[in-house]
């Protein structure tokens, strides 16, 4: 598949401070999450791929075209900045239609597209209210609306969920997932791992300006064979289960959670563990209530990779 966004050996520094270093990657359609702590270089990367900053070294191409000083690329790209900033004097409809007018749409078309975008982010009821009276959630959704109002193929969303209440977060995650089904390429950054996990499994881990890992979160997890997998099983027979599995050579550690009637196994060989578990379930009256993988999430992968 041809890459939508292609970065080659991107480096950017601010005086003596390193922003990003030697980043090469390809981004395909779908949702890709850019994950890392504050100051990791996510915003620098996003600003370079949206042509707001120039890389000191390397280059970035979108659909094969260079980005820096190529304003025509913005017909195909929408950017949602991290900062909570607006032209506060305007109302939501004026803000969107004003920005749409910069694409060369006629006035009626601007209004139509602005109304559509406001409907998508569920702000049509407050469209005539000044932006300064909007809640944080409304403002965040308005920022997303301005990025998607011209129906671009690529959406770059810098920390779109930051500062939102749980309900607004869920709404926005739903919206981002819907956009993926329409064939869009979405790059979303976050430093909050469960948020990313709720949106996609395709991640780019970035730390100290470098890419630590890239790909499917579960695939990355498999690569980390120096770190054990944790598997939590909830069962009324959790002690028996532990005694049946304890002799196996791939079991590294067993921890009991008596209160919740659960046992946590640590293993280097997840496949062998599950094969044995299947055998036990089939050949005994073992009753399992829940199987989870507490470390099979972004936080665990991230902690392992940065060696916390």
């Amino acid at each position, binding site marked *: 598949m041809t890459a939508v966004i292609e970065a080659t050996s991107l480096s950017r520094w*601010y005086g003596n*401070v390193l*922003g990003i270093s030697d980043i090469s990657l390809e981004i395909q359609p779908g949702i890709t999450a850019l994950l890392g702590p504050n100051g990791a270089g996510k*915003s*620098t990367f996003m*600003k370079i791929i*949206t*042509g*707001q*900053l*120039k890389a000191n070294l390397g280059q970035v191409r979108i659909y094969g075209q260079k980005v820096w*000083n190529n*304003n*025509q*690329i*913005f*017909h195909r*790209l*929408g*950017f949602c*900045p*991290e*900062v909570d*900033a*607006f*032209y506060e*004097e*305007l109302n939501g409809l*004026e803000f969107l239609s*004003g*920005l749409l*007018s*910069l*694409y*060369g749409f006629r006035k009626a078309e601007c209004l139509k597209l602005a109304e559509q975008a406001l409907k998508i982010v569920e702000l049509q009821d407050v469209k005539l209210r000044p932006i300064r009276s909007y809640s944080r959630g409304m403002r965040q959704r308005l920022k997303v609306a*301005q990025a998607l109002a011209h129906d671009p193929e690529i959406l770059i969303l810098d920390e779109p969920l930051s500062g939102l209440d749980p309900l607004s977060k869920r709404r926005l995650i739903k919206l981002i997932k819907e956009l993926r089904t329409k064939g869009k390429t979405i790059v979303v950054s976050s430093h909050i791992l469960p948020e990313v996990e709720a949106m996609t499994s395709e991640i780019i881990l970035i730390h100290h300006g470098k890419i630590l890992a890239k790909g499917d979160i579960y695939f990355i997890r498999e690569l980390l064979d120096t770190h054990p997998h944790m598997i939590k099983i909830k069962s009324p027979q959790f002690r028996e289960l532990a005694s049946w599995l304890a002799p196996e050579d791939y079991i590294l550690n067993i921890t009991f959670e008596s209160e919740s009637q659960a046992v946590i196994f640590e293993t280097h060989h997840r496949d062998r563990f599950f094969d044995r578990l299947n055998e036990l379930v089939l050949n005994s009256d073992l009753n399992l209530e829940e199987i989870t993988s507490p470390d099979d999430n972004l936080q665990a992968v991230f902690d392992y990779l940065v060696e916390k």
Partner: protein
Amino acid sequence: MIISRRFSIIWWKSKMREEILRVFSFYFFLGKKSARTRTFFLVSSVSILMALIIRAYQLAGYWTENGQVIFQNFLMVFFLQFLIVLLGLFYGTSILAEEVEGRTMSYITTRPVRRAALITGKYLAYLSLVSIMLISTVLISYLILNLGRDFRLDDIGTVFRYFIILWLGLAAYMSFFNFLGAWLKKPILVGLAFGFGWESIIQYFPGTTQKLSVAHYLKSLLPQYTSSSGKLGFLFIRLEPTKPGLAVLILIAIILVFLILASLIFSYKEYLFEE
């Protein structure tokens, strides 16, 4: 080859013009709604209040000169040396500074509009807004100071000439301050020093030094120029005027040169407002 090159130049020009117009309409609308426009409209309206006070003094017999002379002095002191510098400074520097300080830069730099078109369109939008502000206050002040006098056809020409001088001054100051705003992080202080320091002091120096200011060329264009007439004549006693035609050309050159410089800086400079 030549034809295709000419064609591409014409195409580029028309594309650029179209982009400038888009930016112009967006910022003209935004400017109309901004609190700053209301504030500066009030500041400019002070001239009307001052004109009323002067007129009252004139009627009471404390001021003996006719309305034309008083208006010219008023124009010199309030409009030429204060208001257009102030408006040019705050609107000119804000063209980019307000986007940086308001952190809205990414909204405009991620649109399919050239950066040169962005800065030119916004400059023209703000210039138009301030021109409306200026024209209305100048006209009302002129009428107040000349009320009761028989108007002649020449008066329309004179008022029109005042407008042109003020507009050229405003456009030149705004272009220069726009350039400062694109170049410097904190343009206001430098702008204040230039507008109310350098521009005023340099006028008192004889010879060619005074030609290193915008005010010199504006004063050279004033009609019925007298170097020492009126109560405020001392303010322009040292003026050694440039020929009007040349003064106009130099003012136009100042407008264009600084607008082009600001566009170039904006096209290549990165505005790091978050890092």
